[in-house]
């Protein structure tokens, strides 16, 4: 029986939350809640980085370290902005979703190429 693709589903949710976060910066008069933004900032960037490690983690371990890595990335972006300009200039709601998309994209490409390699091996075997 095929395993339910939890990781892929979480990646999609993170990507959607990232999109939502970017949309909240839109100048259009939208009354959007910041709750999904908070959820994204807490888990999104960290989860996308941990996916790249290609290690198997338990759900609790994944959740806790996602928060840890997300906070580190958030602070890093703020600190780089401060050091280079003296003020907070890098828009967090744009930079962090973009970083998350890049990491998730890299993970997707790598996973797909690995699956293709396995497929070729199985076919040739």
């Amino acid at each position, binding site marked *: 029986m095929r395993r339910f693709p939890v990781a892929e589903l979480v990646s999609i949710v993170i990507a959607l939350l990232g999109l939502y976060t970017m949309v909240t910066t839109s100048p259009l008069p939208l009354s959007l809640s910041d709750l999904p933004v908070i959820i994204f900032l807490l888990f999104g960037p960290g989860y996308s*980085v*941990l996916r790249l*490690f290609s*290690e*198997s*983690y338990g759900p609790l*371990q994944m959740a806790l*370290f996602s928060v*840890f*890595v997300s*906070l*580190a*990335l*958030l*602070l*890093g972006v*703020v*600190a*780089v902005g*401060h*050091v280079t300009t003296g003020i907070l200039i890098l828009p967090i709601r744009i930079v962090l979703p973009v970083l998350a998309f890049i990491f998730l994209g890299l993970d997707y490409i790598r996973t797909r190429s690995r699956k293709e390699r396995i497929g070729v091996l199985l076919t040739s075997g």
Partner: protein
Amino acid sequence: MRTKLESYKAALILFIFLPILLSGTTIPHTSAQSSPSRNGTSTVQVSIVGTIDPSYDVFDLNLPLLVNISIHSTSAPLATNQTILFVLSFVPNSAGAIVHFANGSSTPTVILASSGVGGSSKAFQFNLPAGSTGFDANIQGIQFGAALLFRDAIRMPTFGIENFQNATVSQNTTIVTRPGNLITESFDFVGHSTPLPSIVQKGASNVTFSVPSGVYFIVMQSHLFFPASVAVTLVAAIFLILLALGLFARSRKVFDPLWNRFVGVLSSLRPLASKMSIQDKVRQPHRASLARTMLIMFITCAILMIAIAAIAGPDPQTKVYVIATPSQANLIHKNLLPIRSNLQMITPAQDFSDFAVMSSVGDFNIAVISSFPTVNLPEVSYFVLPNLGNVPVIVVDNTSDPLFATQVSALYTNRVIHVANAANLSSSDVRRISIALNAATGQKNPFGVQIGGTSFKLVVVIEAGFSFLLVFLGWSALGLYAAEANNENSLQRLALMIALGVFVFYFSETTYVLTSSLLRFPLSLHAVISGAKSITAVGYLGFGGGSTPRLLAGAVGILFGSFIGGWNSRFSKRGFGIMIAIIVLIIANPFLLGQLAFQGILLYAGGMTIGTAYSSALTFKQFLYTIGSGVGGNVSPVYLMSAGKILAFAGLVPLAFLNKMPKITASFTVLFCAIAVGVGGIRVGEMTPTKTVIAVVPGLMSGLIFALILLLIALLEKYLVSSRVVSVQ
């Protein structure tokens, strides 16, 4: 009507701005700098001559620069007596002045040390009597520079004059040295590059450089330095190329058995390993037990330090902190001798910025506040006043600054004893101080053990040695755990590194605080003024505050542990060879990169803040502080941030990802972490646990950012290795 209103407005504007417009043209001509000569007030000509015999040692923080300052002043006859203050960057060996009068007569006068205030400047004063028309003064002394990596860095001697109204000061500075020495770099007060001093006189035995105004640091080197460094750079470059081509493969056959034998000897030190069951030995790699042994040795060392301090402490000497002029302080010391014969006096000249730490470990039994120059009082008061509550007895006399005395009396009412003059105590004063001192608790050994001053010094020296061993063992254990073979995932390793690293730092700091408190003598201090050797335990070993050896103990500990733990599996020998060659290339080359490396090492090892390295360090600090601010740093002065402590915790995190790194990146990561932990680990000796509390989380966050960057480099190495661009075997 409208025209009339506008004309009123114009008149009003003219009325308001006319004085400003007029003053704009007159202010420069009536400034304090230009008027004295025209009004017949004072002019002061200062000639500073620094003579240096460069040493060009690998490392020496006591490079002497002989300073001779000649001051010539002329003025209109003074109407009243005037006390002039000279502020110098060094303590003079000799100082004297001759005062001239209008009738042509001259009188020699004495220049008195006004404060002997610690820090960078020292104040000296002398009196100009009414009717005098000028003076000639001469001050001689020694200022110390630093020799590092065959270059000498020298801080220019500075001279300032205060309390001399309307004086126009002109100053010229020259440096005299032997021929064959060059000044290759110069910097201003904040570390920016300035025009180089030029040669104004060249003789057979010496060369004189004229130092432009604004130059605060210079770097000297021999004329042989450039060709020699080019030669070393070339050798390193050739070595690097040969190494990259794999031409040293045969040398490993000789080197590897030697290393394995060394590791074998260390492994025989593992008492616990021999007691493990066969199943345990199979289950766990043998390195793990060595890491555990190292951790046990670390804890044992800590307990041993605390036990020795508990049994041998406290310091049999009574310590008195005296805020007074040097002459007054000596008299105060003599007056207190009838109370306690075994009395050690400490003054702000030795250290005032560490007063909080010194007093918090019970270093001082009495504080005496007497006459002290008002000009130097604020910087001393800033550090001392909030922490006087740690001193059981505070003596304040009538010659002290009234405002400061009032503040002290108001804050510490129950501890203050008022006397007329601390330098001339009455029998009643002596009795009151004696009673208060005897009433103070915790002055005696709880086990009834008493040792003399000489034995206590021996104990203190042993504790100082252990303090470095403690740092080394703690970080070695961490290095071993980081590099040992394991099958945990990165997050499990990260949790282990955080738990172990935070424990090692905290337990080291706890041991430092506890040992210092039991001895009533600080093991070390963070910013102790150079040359103050008898106020810390490590000072008795000749290390002042002990920062540089603590840095080395920490960095070598991480490297030692990591190499022992993972030399054969984790790291690339060729990678290390390449890195060492690159480090030599960076440090030895005489060009911009070499200069930057020199500045960077001087910043941490010599405490001199020059050039781009200094500004880069400030930017890096700003980066750490911003991260710290995001997670609770600097909310209040209690939880003040320390960039050093943040860096120490940041250095732990990349070690958790060694499993995911190919060999060259792993080797580089270990070097990076050793430097970060070493530099940050200095702060264990600062003994400020509140700063540690607020540094842990920002440190881990920063460390994670560094780890992600290093993992990106690891990806690059993996790609290059898989593309067969580089080989790491």
